[in-house]
């Protein structure tokens, strides 16, 4: 993701945490100072022996931010940081992420959250975020699918706001069906497409002969039976 220029109008002119879009810092000294602040913030939460922010640290961060551990905004933050491992932020990820957000303190981070939300919701980012959310759950090496329970929670978290009725029905279905015990990436991405393209709850424009994954064919059949 290309670094975005911060839209903050209230940024103090001599704050060296602002980087312009072409990456030039205001002044070298100011830059190092800004980086220091970011690093110091990092160290506040990091596990000193591991050198990364671990789940405990993240929990602490969350409570400081006044955000629930399971809040979707933390997931968004992870996305912005391009965090690779669920529950952990490395120093690099932290630095790059916070710089991209244009924040170097807790207060600024807190204020940046609503903007981050908007950023994620932009159509060009949303799909990317959505896919990221799935991959973030692949905790084991070579893991390709996520169990149904977690998927249901994830759907709620990620799509719940925008597609409440679809998510509710889908989650209900996933829990009662037993064809699939896990969901893979292909099925995951098609859930989003389904929500975006198919009219709900009438499902009028759904065509099972098209290339929808079988799990959605079965879901639609289940819905139609329920409705009749």
């Amino acid at each position, binding site marked *: 993701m290309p670094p975005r220029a911060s839209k903050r109008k209230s940024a103090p002119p001599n704050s060296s945490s602002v980087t312009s879009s072409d990456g030039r810092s205001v002044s070298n000294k100011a830059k190092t100072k800004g980086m220091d602040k970011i690093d110091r913030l990092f160290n506040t939460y990091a596990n000193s022996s591991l050198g990364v922010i671990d789940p405990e640290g993240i929990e602490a961060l969350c409570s400081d931010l006044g955000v629930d551990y399971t809040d979707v905004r933390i997931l968004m933050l992870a996305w912005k940081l391009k965090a690779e491992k669920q529950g952990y932020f490395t120093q690099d990820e932290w630095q790059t992420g916070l710089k991209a957000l244009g924040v170097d303190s807790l207060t600024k981070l807190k204020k940046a959250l609503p903007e981050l939300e908007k950023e994620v919701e932009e159509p060009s980012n949303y799909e990317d975020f959505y896919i990221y959310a799935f991959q973030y759950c692949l905790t084991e090496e070579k893991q390709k699918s996520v169990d149904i329970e977690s998927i249901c929670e994830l759907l709620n978290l990620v799509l719940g706001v925008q597609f409440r009725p679809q998510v509710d029905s889908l989650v209900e279905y996933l829990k009662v069906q037993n064809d699939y015990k896990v969901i893979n990436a292909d099925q995951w991405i098609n859930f989003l497409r389904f929500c975006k393209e198919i009219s709900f709850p009438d499902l009028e424009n759904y065509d099972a002969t098209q290339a929808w*994954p079988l799990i959605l064919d079965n879901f639609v059949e289940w819905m139609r039976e329920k409705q009749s």
Partner: protein
Amino acid sequence: MSNQKKRNFQIEAFKHRVVVDPKYAEKTWSVLEHAIHEIYNHNASGLSFEELYRNAYNMVLHKFGEKLYSGLVTTMTAHLKEISKSIEAAQGGLFLEELNRKWNDHNKALQMIRDILMYMDRTYIPNAHKTPVHELGLNLWRDNVIHSSKIQSRLLSMLLELVHKERTGEVIDRGLMRNIIKMLMDLGSSVYQEDFEKPFLEVSAEFYMGESQKFIECCDCGDYLKKAEIRLNEEIERVTHYLDVKSEVKITNVVEKEMIASHMMRLVHMENSGLVNMLLDDKYEDLGRMYNLFRRVPNGLSTIRDVMTSHLREIGKQLVTDAEKLKDPVEFVQRLLDEKDKYDNIISQAFCNDKMFQNALNSSFEYFINLNNRSPEFISLFVDDKLRKGLKGVGEEEVEIILDKVMMLFRYLQEKDVFEKYYKQHLAKRLLSGKTVSDEAERSLIVKLKTECGYQFTSKLEGMFTDMKTSQDTMQGFYASHLELTDGPTLVVQVLTTGSWPTQPSITCNLPAEMSALCEKFRSYYLGTHTGRRLSWQTNMGTADIKATFGKGQKHELNVSTYQMCVLMLFNNADRLSYKEIEQATGIPTSDLKRCLQSMACVKGKNVLRKEPMSKDIGEEDALFVNDKFTSKFYKVKIGTVVAQKETEPEKLETRQRVEEDRKPQIEAAIVRIMKSRRVLDHNNIIAEVTKQLQSRFLANPTEIKKRIESLIERDFLERDNNDRKLYRYLA
């Protein structure tokens, strides 16, 4: 009078005087006119051709052609008018005769007149663009005789009346008709058409409309068609005898339309005598007639074909869903073959081997055979029956015929892989029990299957035959190297290669000591020459021959299964054994043990064992004894064969499951093959291509194909296109 000028003497040539006589033309013409009169009055013999010709010649030469011509017209017309009157005067039947006679006279006269006036015909007439004499003669006849008001309609109605008479069975003067018709034809095709043909066709249409209505009310289909055929032939004959040959197709169209096309559906669907009844009763002649008649009308053959197809499908459907008939698979398949034979005969005898009908037959069979999903199994059972006993004593050629017919049914199957599975099972049983009637017949069928389905289909089957042969050689080698064993029990081992034979769970039981020792010796012998292999005894598939002596000294040789042998051998050491003891000693699984004991204790004629209590079923508390009172007419008694039977419900389910499992990799292989060559393909096309590729083995289910695609996506063989969700891309 010559006004001779006085000249110096001149010898004048003797010449005709140049006549500038104004009356010359008049005179000459009257000579000719007179001649024409005489000709028409049959007095031509007194005339001099040369003189008349000369006169006509002179008239033309002296520029009196016009007068000659118009004179001719006038004279001839006058004569024709008189002739007309005399014809009109004729009564009844003599009318046509008179007309005919006068026509002949006119032609003769015309001929003579034309000859006389030939010079005019050749010079004046072309120059003045007048109608030539002969043609003129015909036209005048037409206008003055044929088209005279009194004659025209009378002529037509007489002609039509004669035709009608003939149609109702009377004999008419065909020669006269021919002449009259020919006269009309000579007068010009438009005369023939307007003055005869058109009305003739109209009247005929009415006639046949009425006739067909009458027939259809009182005749059954076969009779009606006979009548229609007769009428059709009659009309064709009529044309050859006295009509213009071009009329044939027109009149036959009329008959076809009125007698066949208008009543086509009613005929075909006629109760008790329609097409379906003809098919059921093999009425070749009637069917052939229908075919020949219907092929003349539009949609005739397709109508027959459609009715035949829906009838066949109906019968076929009844056949394959009739629970009664399905009880005996061999009977069932024989019925199918009989039905096919019946229709093959109908198509060859009555329908001229018409290819479209053959196709309709094939598509109908394909339709209903696949309605019953046990068809593949039943066809295999039929083959099994034939190869076990049905073909005993049958000549080689007949065997080929029967096998070819079976192959025909096989081709109709959609689920050929299910057939393959059953065939393998049944073949295994046949081979292992040595129950095949003809090795050649077996191999012949394998070759046919190979030709039909390719090498892969039959490679495993051929492997089974190879194993049998190899085992024979192995046994020879075994006994050759173990000469000390020739006195003991004879062991025959068939070593089966796991991949080629139908998979069986390998269950062992406890063999009697003599046997197990022998088996061990074999095992070490075999593994000695084939290191790295693993042998597992399939005790549920073997047989044994044992000699037994009963209470009263009666000796018999018993042919039993391996399980049965294990049980019987126990009685060498005990007189009474409880069920539980037997179970423990032999280790045979419960349901097999019960079946085994039942066959030896509860079946009349095979009851080498006695059971207490004497109930029909084997209970776990039962006790068993040797039946000392056992008798049999035969020395060799066969107990319990391993015959291929119709599967039980759970077995059926299992086989089907296995077939479904086997299909998955085949579908995947097809998908990968297709995507590898196409690189990018959309969903619907993939489904279509895969289905086509697998068609020769089974009908692929689109949902199953979709599942396989998703599985391949998960395993990174394929991916979906980012922009167009319906496209798949091959990942190298």
